[in-house]
């Protein structure tokens, strides 16, 4: 291992790169990733495995947990039907456990909703949200967004009960652009008819990849007979194989990513969209989005400090300033104890009620005189 790292270090030394040149190639200083799995239930095991595998690769290439927002709609590792509890496998014969013991899931279970997803993207979270659940990107952040689940023409299904449409997603990205919350954004979606989700984008600096075109289904890769479900989807499987060859210093660019999973392997036709992206995809490195390579500047100056260190006065006992710390009222106690029924807005009566009343009126007219009814009809 030592010789391997030494040769790697020697390789670094041989690569000459001007520091100013390193700045202009991408224009970003930090990386974020938002990885979302939108489906629940045991038979959608592969979606969770997809997301966790991308999470693993992104972490391996350098993005820290504090810069990853991981949303998993269901807990497969501790599902009652999991024959190997506390594991999520992404390869048959249980070769690779992507769950491990340092997975940090930020939004789990029922917290993965369309509303929360849009709130994370646009930043409109309640003040009590902790830092790990926020996307604190700035105008120099490159963001990777990966969505997987069940989708259709123009929508993506969340939690089997709600959906997000491509118009809403495009509007959310536009709001992010207005507030300069990203420098460049890479959007990858692995669902059926995934290409429809990026059709409506209109903000600049967006690059999108999808696993299938409109009218095509994205297929799953391989079932595992011991676990009993399909472990991964084809597109993500080949995407991960591609990412295995990427290391933090590699120079592979986006054109290679577009070639991942051709029709012969994927059965569906992967698509991509680069017309909104300002740079040429051939000059965009994979590590610009999947990894987190920091820019470095050597510190040339130092300030000459000559004062000796002041001794701290001992005032710990006397005037301890007590600050009243307040935090946002999350669950005020009085409200829990004395809960009044919530005042709901008045709505016009439902169709069912209307129909019922019509029936009653009809019966009334029938019994008491058809002739009155004849004036109406």
């Amino acid at each position, binding site marked *: 291992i030592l010789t391997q790292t030494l040769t790697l270090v020697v390789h670094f030394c041989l690569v000459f790169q001007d520091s100013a040149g390193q700045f202009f190639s991408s224009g970003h200083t930090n990386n974020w990733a938002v990885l979302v799995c939108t489906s629940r239930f045991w038979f959608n095991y592969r979606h969770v495995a997809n997301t966790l595998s991308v999470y693993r690769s992104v972490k391996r290439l350098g993005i820290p947990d504090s810069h990853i927002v991981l949303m998993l709609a269901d807990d497969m590792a501790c599902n009652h039907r999991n024959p190997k509890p506390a594991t999520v496998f992404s390869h048959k014969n249980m070769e690779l456990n992507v769950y491990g013991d340092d997975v940090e899931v930020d939004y789990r279970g029922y917290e993965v909703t369309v509303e929360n997803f*849009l709130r994370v993207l646009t930043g409109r979270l309640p003040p009590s949200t902790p830092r790990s659940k926020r996307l604190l990107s700035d105008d120099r952040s490159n963001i990777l967004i990966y969505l997987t689940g069940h989708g259709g023409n123009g929508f993506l299904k969340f939690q089997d009960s709600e959906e997000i449409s491509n118009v809403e997603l495009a509007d959310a990205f536009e709001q992010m652009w207005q507030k300069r919350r990203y420098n460049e954004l890479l959007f990858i979606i692995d669902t059926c008819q995934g290409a429809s989700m990026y059709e409506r984008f209109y903000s600049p600096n967006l690059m999108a990849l999808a696993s299938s075109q409109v009218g095509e289904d994205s297929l799953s890769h391989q079932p595992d007979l011991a676990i009993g479900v399909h472990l991964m989807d084809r597109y993500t499987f080949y995407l991960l194989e591609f990412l295995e060859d990427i290391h933090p210093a590699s120079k592979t660019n986006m054109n290679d990513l577009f070639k991942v999973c051709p029709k012969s392997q994927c059965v569906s036709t992967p698509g991509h969209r680069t017309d909104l992206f300002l740079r040429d995809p051939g000059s965009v490195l994979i590590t610009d989005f999947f990894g987190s390579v920091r820019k470095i*500047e050597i510190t040339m100056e130092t300030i*000459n400090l000559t004062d000796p260190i002041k001794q701290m006065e001992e005032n710990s006992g006397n005037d301890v300033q007590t600050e009243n710390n307040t935090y946002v009222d999350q669950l005020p106690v009085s409200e829990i104890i004395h809960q009044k029924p919530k005042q709901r807005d008045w709505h016009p009566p439902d169709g069912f009620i209307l129909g019922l009343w019509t029936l009653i009126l009809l019966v009334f007219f029938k019994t008491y005189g058809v002739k009155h009814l*004849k004036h109406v009809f």
Partner: protein
Amino acid sequence: MAVTEVERRRGKLAALSIAAMVILVGVPLWWKTTQTYRAWLPVAQINELAKLQLQLSADVEVVFARGTATPEQQKKVPVTQTQDEDHAVDEDTTLRYRHETRYRTATVMEEDALKQPTAAEADLSLHRLSESPCGSLVIYVIPESSSLLPENVNVYIGQRRTALLRIGAQMKVGKTLKQLLAHLEPRVKQILQVMSFSHNDITAALSDRVRFSPDNKESIADSMRAFKSSPGYEITFSLLNPDPKSHRLHWDIEGAVQTYIQPLLTKLSPVANFSLDSQILYYAMLGVNPRYDSSRSAYILNADSLAHVINPVEARLGSNAASSNPVLNFLLYVPDAHHSPLYIHDHKKREVQTNAFHSPRWGGIMVYNVNGFYQTGTNFPVDVNINMAKVMGVFLAQLRLLLGVQSTAPPSSFQVAPCGSSGLADWELDRLMWSRSVENVATATTTITSLAQLLDQIGNIVINDNIAQQVSSAVTSLQLAVAELEVGNLGFALQYSKEAILASEKAFFDPSLLHLLYFPDDQKFAIYIPLFLPMCVPILLSLLKIVSEVRQRRREKQAKKD
């Protein structure tokens, strides 16, 4: 069964009254109850703000010391000149720089102060005489014969808001005041470029409004390095000790922070709030294997491998989870005994004197070698006291860079005084305040205008009263900030711009502004048809029947007439 006229009439009235109820009462009721509540926003004023016309004013005083102006010239002084410089950045943003220059002669006390042996002492005694307000400058013109400045230096920029300018020997007796002023103007302008706001800085601060490609590479790097304006920052000092078995490190971080860092942060308090913490991490490795260089018998870290140092360490650093302010991390790494000493080399394979590097918008790392403090044979672990003055000197320099204090290098004939014990010269603070005010104003105007645009575009978002109030207060603060910038009150302008940006961010990021209300047309039909169709069909049919009956009767009447 024959239907009598009365019953038919009653039927018609019933149908007509039901239709009237539905149209006059039902439809407005439905409209009112399905309307979203939208409080009033000052849209006209927001549209006005979309066209930003900023005027930055600075007061400059040019004081002539004895020997620089002839008596005839001195008679015409004091004189005030105003220079305006207009720039149109793009179609929505125009800038105007106004410098009001006041020329006068030096008072007796100032002459005495200028007689000090060195420029630094002269600066200090001049400062004791009078303190210039925020944003203004005083330039003292000294004769060529003066011994305050060394040979090749023409300008000395002090620690506060004064500069000393030496006139060349071209001044002969008999020149008019106008020629003197014309000779001074380019020199004064040069000084203003360094000490006061410059076009590059201001356009860099407007980057939120204007996405432009600057012509020189340095300013891209500058704009990417400094943190964006934020109401608060968190600074974390971490000591990384990978080898506690060999080194027992002691660092007086509290005292060091109090002595060296706190003065700077106190001086910067009008700009932002700072919160400090520190931690010690044990067994934290660098993640990159350094190369052993036998010629120097030391371990070397190359500039190219430095980029991979930060990521493994960052995962262990942790952060203050309470606020979403940007975090600046300063790491002090003491190499383990087997890899000591460890030096950093730059791209040209030269040793870096500070042994430190920094990453834009993240923080800095310094490598501190302790192998010089003990002999090889001593018993481990060894107690080591870290020299905090040296460490804080480097961290302070990095902090200045990351906060955006550093300006472009001054021209060669300039000598800049080293910043004082607070780590920041007054004129540097002024520059920072100018760019922060402009940045805040630019960001707040884009936020407010895009919010107004968004709310206009999406008719289904509810606008609560508190959002309308935040928007109004943001608009007022913005107008005040622009007015104060015009007059030249830098302190107030910065304060108003901070209020404006806080209010606008609060309004934009209010959690209630999420619209999940996109309904495609077919869904709207699918919802309303089962509700209203069963009710409307009998009404419509009865109305039609009434109309056809009326028409038939009219035809009969016509026929009867004929």
